[in-house]
C-alpha cells in the first residue's frame, strides 16, 4: 500500500503522516468487514483452453479439473493415492476393481453425485479423442448400486488406480439435453463453441464466476463442498495468465500476485534471495532425450557409436551450467519414485571412453549428421542442443543443427526429418511403461506403439516386456520387468538421456503452497491455506 507507507525517497512531513493515518484508518475500517474473505491472486504461463475436462489431455486441463471437479482418487506427494470421491476400493478379481463412492456429495448445480454420473463420465471419456487411448484397456464401468461401481478391464491391468485419477465425475443431468442452438450439451468439440467448453458443473472446491479467455478467470469457493475437513481457506481466486517469465516474476515480487508458476530458471536465485517470497522446487518427471535415427544414419545402427555418443554427452554439466541446477541428470527414462526406476543406472560421461568406442567401431574420424530441436517447448531446449553439438564435435561427429518453434517442430518430428531429434516425455499414467510404449517400442501403426520413436530403435525383448508388464498385476514382478527394460535401453544406448526437468513454484510469504504441490503439477488449491 504505497499511499500509507512513507517512502524515505520522498521524506515525511507532519501533514503527510496525519493524512496517511486517516487514509489507513479508513481503509482498515473497510477491510475489517471483509477480513475473512481471502482472495488468492495467481498467475500461470497460460490459462485453460476449455472448461470441458475431456476436450484436451494437457497439464492445463488437469489443473483446472482439480479445481472445479474432483477425481475418484488423486495422487499425493509420495506418488501414492488419496481417496476423493471414492472413499475406498478393493480388487474383486484380476480384471475388476470395485470403488465405494462418497455419499452426500453435491454438484455445483445442486444435483447429488451418484454412480450413474460416474458411469456417464466414463462413457464420455471413452468417446474423447484425447482420453480414449488411456481408457482403451477398460471394458466397462458397471454400476453396482447408487454408491458402488466396478471398473472392468479387458485383460488383467496393473494401472487401474492410475487411470482412475483421470475420472472426474461430471454432472450428468447438467449436461443433458440441447443448448439454444439445438446442439447436444454433452458434445466434445475441439473447435467451435460447445456447451461443455464454456459451462461446467462438477463437485470441486471452486466455481467459475467470470472468465475472459486469455485475460483472467475468477473462482469462488463452492459453499456445499463435500470436503469439510479440508484445511483450505481461500474464498476467491483470481487467475491471470502471464506469458512472459520476467513479467510473471515481477508481478510476484511487486506484490501484484500471490502465487506464480512456472518460475523461470534464470530467476530462481533472485526469488530464493527475496525475504518476502517462498520458492518450492521439486525434481520433475519429464525426461528430456535425444533419439538417434538408425534408419537415416547407418552409423547409428552400431551399438558402440550410440554408446560413444552417450559417453560424450556431459549431461550433468548441462544441468549445472545451462539449467543452473534446475534438473536432475538422467541415465534412464523413469524418474525416482516410478516403479521401473533402477538406482544402479548412473550418468556416464567419459570422453576417453567415448573416443575409444568410436575407434572400435571404425569411426575414428567421425561422420556428419543432422540434428533438430524445438526452441520454445522445453526449458532451454535450443541451448541444450547447441551444447550437445559442441560435445559431439569432440568425438568428431559433425552436427548441423536446426532449431525451430514447437509448432513447426512437431510436423518435422513426425516426418523424422533429422538424424538426431530431441524429445521430452512425461508419462500420462505416471508409470514407467508409458515412456517405452511411446518412445522406444518398435513403431507399430496398428497398436500405436512407438509413435514417437523417431530413432527407429527396435529390440524384441523390450517389445515383449512392454506388452507383458501391462498384464502383470503383481507389483514385484512388474517392477522386475520395467527395470529390465531400463537396463536394456541403458546398455544398448537406445537413446541419449539428458535430464528430468525440475518444477518450481513461488508464492508470497503467508501463502502456504508447499503442502498442496506435487510432482504432477496439479496444485490442490482447494486445500490451500493462506493468511
Amino acid at each position, binding site marked *: 500500500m504505497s499511499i500509507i507507507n512513507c517512502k524515505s525517497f520522498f521524506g515525511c512531513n507532519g501533514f503527510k503522516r496525519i493524512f496517511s493515518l486517516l487514509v489507513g484508518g479508513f481503509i482498515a475500517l473497510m477491510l475489517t468487514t471483509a477480513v475473512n474473505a481471502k482472495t488468492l491472486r495467481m498467475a500461470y504461463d497460460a490459462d485453460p483452453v476449455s472448461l470441458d475436462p475431456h476436450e484436451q*489431455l494437457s497439464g492445463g486441463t488437469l489443473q483446472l479439473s482439480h479445481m472445479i471437479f474432483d477425481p475418484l482418487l488423486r495422487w499425493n506427494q509420495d506418488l501414492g493415492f488419496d481417496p476423493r470421491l471414492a472413499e475406498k476400493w478393493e480388487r474383486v478379481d484380476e480384471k475388476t476393481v470395485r470403488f465405494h463412492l462418497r455419499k452426500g456429495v453435491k454438484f455445483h448445480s445442486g444435483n447429488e453425485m451418484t454412480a450413474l454420473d460416474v458411469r456417464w463420465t466414463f462413457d464420455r471419456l471413452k468417446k474423447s479423442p484425447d482420453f480414449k487411448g488411456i481408457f482403451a484397456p477398460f471394458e466397462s464401468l458397471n454400476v453396482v448400486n447408487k454408491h458402488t461401481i466396478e471398473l472392468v478391464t479387458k485383460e488383467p491391468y496393473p494401472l487401474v488406480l492410475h487411470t482412475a485419477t483421470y475420472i472426474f465425475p461430471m454432472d450428468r443431468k447438467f449436461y443433458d439435453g440441447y443448448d439454444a442452438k439445438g446442439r447436444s450439451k454433452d458434445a466434445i468439440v475441439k473447435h467451435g463453441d460447445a456447451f461443455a467448453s464454456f459451462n461446467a458443473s462438477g463437485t470441486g472446491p471452486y466455481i467459475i464466476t467470470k472468465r475472459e479467455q486469455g485475460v483472467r478467470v475468477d473462482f469462488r469457493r463452492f459453499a456445499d463442498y463435500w470436503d469439510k475437513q479440508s484445511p483450505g481457506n481461500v474464498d476467491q481466486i483470481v487467475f491471470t495468465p502471464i506469458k512472459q517469465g520476467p513479467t510473471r516474476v515481477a508481478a510476484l515480487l511487486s506484490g*501484484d500476485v500471490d502465487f506464480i508458476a512456472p518460475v523461470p530458471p534464470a530467476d530462481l536465485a533472485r526469488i530464493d534471495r527475496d525475504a518476502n517470497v517462498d520458492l518450492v522446487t521439486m525434481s520433475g518427471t519429464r525426461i528430456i532425450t535425444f533419439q538417434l535415427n538408425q534408419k537415416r544414419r547407418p552409423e547409428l545402427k552400431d551399438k558402440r557409436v550410440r554408446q560413444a555418443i552417450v559417453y560424450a554427452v556431459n549431461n550433468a554439466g548441462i544441468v549445472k551450467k545451462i539449467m543452473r541446477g534446475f534438473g536432475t541428470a538422467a541415465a534412464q527414462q523413469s524418474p525416482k519414485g516410478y516403479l521401473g526406476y533402477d538406482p544402479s543406472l548412473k550418468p556416464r560421461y567419459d570422453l576417453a571412453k567415448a573416443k575409444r568406442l568410436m575407434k572400435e567401431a571404425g569411426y575414428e574420424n567421425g561422420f556428419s549428421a543432422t540434428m533438430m530441436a524445438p526452441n520454445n517447448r522445453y526449458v532451454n531446449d535450443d541451448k541444450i542442443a547447441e551444447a550437445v553439438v559442441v560435445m559431439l564435435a569432440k568425438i568428431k561427429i559433425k552436427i548441423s543443427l536446426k532449431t525451430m518453434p514447437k509448432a513447426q517442430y512437431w510436423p518435422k518430428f513426425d516426418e523424422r526429418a533429422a538424424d538426431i531429434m530431441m524429445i521430452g516425455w512425461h508419462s500420462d499414467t505416471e508409470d514407467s511403461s508409458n515412456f517405452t510404449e511411446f518412445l522406444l517400442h518398435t513403431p507399430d501403426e496398428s497398436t500405436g506403439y512407438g509413435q514417437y520413436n523417431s530413432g527407429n530403435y527396435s529390440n524384441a525383448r523390450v517389445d515383449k516386456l512392454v506388452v507383458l508388464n501391462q498384464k502383470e498385476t503383481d507389483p514385484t514382478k512388474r517392477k522386475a520387468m520395467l527395470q529390465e527394460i531400463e537396463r536394456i535401453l541403458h546398455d544398448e544406448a537406445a537413446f541419449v538421456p539428458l535430464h528430468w526437468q525440475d518444477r518450481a513454484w513461488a508464492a508470497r510469504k503467508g501463502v502456504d503452497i508447499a503442502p498442496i504441490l506435487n510432482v504432477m503439477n496439479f496444485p490442490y488449491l482447494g486445500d490451500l491455506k493462506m493468511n
Partner: protein
Amino acid sequence: MFAFFSRRLVQAVLVMLVISVIAFSIQDNLGDPLRELVGQSVSEAERQSLRNQMGLNDPFFVQYWRFFKKALLGDLGTSYFFKRPALDVILDKLPATLELVFGTTLIVILFSVPIGVFAAIYPKQWFLRLVMGMSIIGISIPVFLTAIMSIYIFSVELGWLPSFGRGETVELYGWTVGFLTRDGLMHLILPCTALSSIMLPLFIRLIRAEMMEVLESEYIRFAWAKGLTRRRIWFLHALKNTLLPVITVGGLQIGTLIAFTILTETVFQWPGMGFLFLEAVNRVDTPLIVAYLIVVGLIFVIANTIVDLIYGLVNPTVRLARSHPEGE
C-alpha cells in the same frame, strides 16, 4: 471528395484481398494446428480424422474459396483456441490496443513538439542537449528491454506502478475503457512510456531538424525583418511548415507502432490485439492469424486516409480529389 473515398475503398478491399491470400498461403509453414489441439499421446489416425473433419486436408483453393465465401458475409472463421468467431475475438481486444496506441501518441505529441521546437531554437542549451543525447539511447534500446527494466524499477523496486495487465476498466458504449479509472490509468503509464520510447526520440529529432531548416528559410527572415513577435514567428509561421513532413512520417509510423504493440503487450501481459496475435502464432491458430492480418491491413488504410485528410487541412495546396494536384 467522393472520388477520394471511393478510391480508398477500392484500395482497402484490394489490400485485404492480397493479405488474405498471403496469410492463407503461409499457414502451411506455420505448423500443424492439430498439435496444439490434442494431447501428445493421441494417435496419428485420430489426428488425421480430426484434420479431415476440419477440412485441413483439402487443397489450397478449396480451403481459400470456402474462406472467401464466408468472408464476404463478414465471417472470418472461428478461432481454434477461443472457439468464437475470430473477428469477434479481435474486436474484443481492439479497445485495449487502441488505448495503448492513443496513450502513446499523446505522450509523443505532448513531448516531441515542445522539445523539438525548443531544441531547434536553442541548440546550445545544456538541458536540451542532454535530452538529445538521451534520445539516441532511447532509439537504440529495444522496446522489450525498456519495458522489462521499467517494470523492475517502478514496480518491483519502487512499488509505484502495477507490473502487468490493464487493471480496472469501465464499460462505455460497449467498449471497455481503462483511462477513466485511477487504477486503469496507473496500468497505462508503463506500457505507454515503453512504447513511446522508440517513437518519441525519433519525432523529437525529426521536429528539431525540420524546424532548424525552416528557421533558416527566406520567409522567416522576412518575418523577422517585418518585426513580428517571436512567438508568432516560431509557433505560427515556422511550426506549421515544420509539421508537414512530420505528419507524413507520423502516418507511416503508425505501422511501426502497431508492430511494437506486439512486443509491449507481450511483456506487460496487456490484453490487446498484438499479444493475441503472438499467441495465435504460437498456437498455430490460423483463422485468428488471417483475421488479425486483415484487420491490421484495414487499420493501415484507415490511418493513411486520416493522415491524408489532415494533410489537406494543414496544407491547403494539397487537393485530395485530384490525382495530380500540381498538374492542373
